[in-house]
């Protein structure tokens, strides 16, 4: 029976001690400790969030870099292509131009050669004519030196004419 009869003394002291403990612990321990724990977990959450954000940023930055690189590459390719085209065109043009020039030059040369030749031929012709006249004069002088020869020539010419 003693065992299950509360004693006032112990009840009294338990009450005082427990209430004091409750006040002190709630004010100076549970609150600050749990606040610290909450603050810490919040800090950790924030840090995690930030890390995630940084990672995302890094990712986007990376993508941006990639894009810029790609663009640059494309631009480079375009420039190269353009340059190549321009070069080819220039070469083509130059070739065309040189062809035309060449042709012109050849034409001019041909013309010059032609005119020169013509002139030479004409000159030659004149020379030949004068030579032939000289030769003919000499020959005529020779062949017509006697009467027989004159008569033979005249008869031969008549014969030729008859044959024609």
């Amino acid at each position, binding site marked *: *029976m*003693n*065992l*299950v009869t509360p004693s006032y003394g112990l009840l009294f002291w338990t009450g005082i001690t427990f209430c004091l403990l409750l006040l002190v612990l709630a004010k100076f321990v549970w609150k600050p400790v749990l606040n610290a724990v909450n603050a810490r977990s919040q800090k950790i959450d924030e840090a995690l969030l930030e890390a995630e954000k940084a990672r995302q940023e890094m990712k986007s930055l990376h993508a941006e870099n990639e894009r810029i690189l790609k663009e640059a590459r494309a631009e480079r390719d375009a420039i190269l292509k353009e340059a190549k085209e321009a070069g080819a065109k220039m070469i083509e043009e130059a070739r065309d131009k040189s062809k035309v020039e060449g042709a012109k030059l050849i034409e001019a040369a041909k013309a010059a050669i032609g005119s020169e030749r013509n002139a030479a031929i004409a000159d030659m012709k004149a020379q030949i004519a004068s030579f032939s006249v000289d030769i003919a004069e000499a020959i005529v002088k020779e062949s017509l030196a006697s009467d027989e020869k004159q008569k033979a020539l005249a008869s031969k010419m008549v014969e030729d004419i008859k044959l024609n």
Partner: protein
Amino acid sequence: MAVFGSVAAIGAGLAVLGAGMGIGRIGGSAVEGIARNPEASGKIQTAMIIAAALIEGVALFGVVVGMLGANG
């Protein structure tokens, strides 16, 4: 006193018997539950301990009444 003591002991024994059966059933069912659904083991454990404690409370009530008989 001697006689009271023996009767109280029988009472305490009976209380223990009932509580033992009850807690045994709880434990068995909890193990079964955990075996079927291992993910819920935490919740089952908590519920098991609380249910066992409630039964134990009743059993101890019997023991205390037995003690009262023994001391009175």
